[in-house]
């Protein structure tokens, strides 16, 4: 065979009995819409297959922890809003919980119920948006995301009438909450809840049985339970892999032990299970919210011992954690008796859930990596801090 006019690559390919491929390095992000912010992945492709994927962090880094060491304990609360900006009430709660352990405060009954109501509303917001974003990433342009955002607006309206802000609520305080519920607010919650069950039915009719969604998510990005545990994956991603670990049950912080909700568990640990676990969690959240709205007592909303502005915990350290919609959100504080913490550390669930991103994507295509990233659910404000 005459090979005098062929390039070396063609000869190699012919010897292997196929077309030759070359490795291609793709810088995916930081300005790609499906990276949910300014996240970047350095992906190496062989043909369409991913052979290596390195996440690159830091585009939104502002050294939140260093800022926290130079402002007062109270001054940190608005900064925690900016961690996971979709779910600021839960970020508030995590920090306030750690401070309360440190200072020996306890929120009164009514405040505890308000916290649960806000946290579960936040979970609804986050999971609805996640499902919308995931569908958007898979190419369902517009409709599911707009439906999700329409429902989110109703909840943000509730946040606004209570706290004055739609996203950056800055609402929880050490030993309670900033202000009491306005007139008719609980009825507003009930109205939203009535509409929400119907919305979820409609949303599921649109998405859950959809053939394209099933094709794109089932069996994609499988995460095994033992790897998930070892890699510190928490939240819905962990439970989708079949591990029953929900801090609302394990730690029963606040008053969660009073609510008989179920913890949805996945079986396969693939993208579809991660989607489905969230849909089921929303249905449980609606149950928790209905019970909380029914049972919330009248009374004070602040611990009488609490001194919000001049809190100076004695020297010591604490680790407080809550089940945020994205996973285990922890705050590690070292106090030295001064008005600001000596060390202020956040354990960000979105960041640590990215530990095994490469393993989940290897051997799949870029389109699958988009689905996997969408199903992990990250917010860059929390990843980069």
């Amino acid at each position: 065979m005459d090979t005098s006019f062929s390039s070396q690559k063609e000869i190699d390919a012919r010897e292997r009995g196929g077309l030759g491929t070359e490795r291609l390095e793709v810088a995916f992000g930081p300005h790609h819409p499906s990276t949910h912010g300014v996240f970047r992945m350095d992906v190496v492709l062989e043909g369409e297959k991913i052979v290596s994927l390195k996440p690159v962090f830091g585009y939104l880094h502002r050294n939140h922890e260093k800022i926290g060491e130079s402002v007062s304990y109270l001054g940190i609360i608005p900064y925690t809003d900016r961690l996971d900006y979709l779910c600021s009430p839960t970020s508030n709660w995590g920090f306030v919980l750690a401070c309360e352990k440190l200072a020996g405060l306890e929120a009164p009954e009514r405040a505890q119920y308000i916290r649960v109501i806000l946290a579960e509303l936040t979970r609804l917001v986050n999971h609805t948006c996640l499902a919308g974003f995931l569908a958007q990433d898979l190419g369902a342009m517009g409709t599911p995301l707009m439906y999700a955002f329409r429902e989110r607006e109703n909840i943000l309206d509730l946040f606004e009438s209570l706290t004055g802000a739609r996203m950056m609520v800055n609402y929880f305080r050490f030993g309670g909450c900033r202000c009491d519920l306005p007139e008719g607010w609980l009825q507003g919650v009930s109205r939203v809840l009535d509409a929400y069950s119907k919305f979820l039915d409609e949303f599921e009719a649109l998405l859950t049985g959809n053939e394209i969604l099933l094709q794109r998510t089932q069996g994609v990005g499988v995460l095994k339970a033992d790897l998930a545990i070892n890699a510190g994956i928490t939240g819905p991603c962990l439970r989708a892999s079949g591990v029953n670990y929900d801090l609302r049950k394990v730690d029963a912080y606040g008053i969660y032990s009073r609510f008989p909700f179920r913890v949805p568990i996945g079986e396969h640990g693939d993208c579809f299970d991660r989607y489905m676990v969230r849909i089921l969690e929303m249905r449980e959240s609606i149950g928790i919210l209905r019970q909380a709205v029914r049972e919330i007592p009248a009374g004070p909303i602040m611990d009488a011992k609490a001194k919000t502005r001049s809190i100076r915990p004695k020297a010591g350290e604490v680790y407080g954690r809550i089940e945020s919609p994205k996973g285990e959100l922890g705050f590690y504080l070292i106090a030295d008796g001064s008005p600001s913490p000596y060390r202020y550390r956040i354990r960000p669930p979105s960041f640590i859930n990215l530990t095994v991103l490469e393993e989940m994507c290897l051997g799949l295509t870029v389109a699958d990596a988009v689905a996997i990233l969408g199903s992990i659910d990250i917010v860059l404000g929390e990843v980069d801090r």
Partner: protein
Amino acid sequence: METPENILARLQAAFPSAKIELLPNGCPSQPPSLLLDPAFACEIATFLKNDAALRLDHATNVTGVDWPKEGYIEAVYHLFSMEKKHGPLIIRLRTANRDTAVVLPSLTPVWRSADLQEREIFDLFGIKFEGHPDLRRILMWDGFKDHPMRKDYVAPDDFEYEPTAHDDVLERAQQHFSKNA
């Protein structure tokens, strides 16, 4: 879960030549922590993870703390058990000093969850983790020189670029450029 005192006694029995210390916690409701001997850290970590009564399989929070007055940097690990649903056990490792001997063993081979977090400590505190699979800067860029989370870190004085600098920013900019001229 067993008390940290009990765990300490069992660790001392299992690793007689390792120096392990119990550090009290000023906050009364919170547990004390165990200061481990870096030379035995990996063995002790594996022991804690595999021990039938403890099964601390979830190393959730891994972070650094800088103590310039005491003259060392700490790496702190918060361990929980997903299987037994208990915790936390807090273990700490200390570097010998803050500039020349900042090497600690990496616990990433034991708990994968320490991977990105140890990289973050390396980046922001400057502890070098021996045995880490991929120790690079993570939040700061690769050419960055210093470690911003150290207590004695001084921010560069020209980072705050303003098109029309005024007041203290202008003053700092003038000082900066006169120094560099």
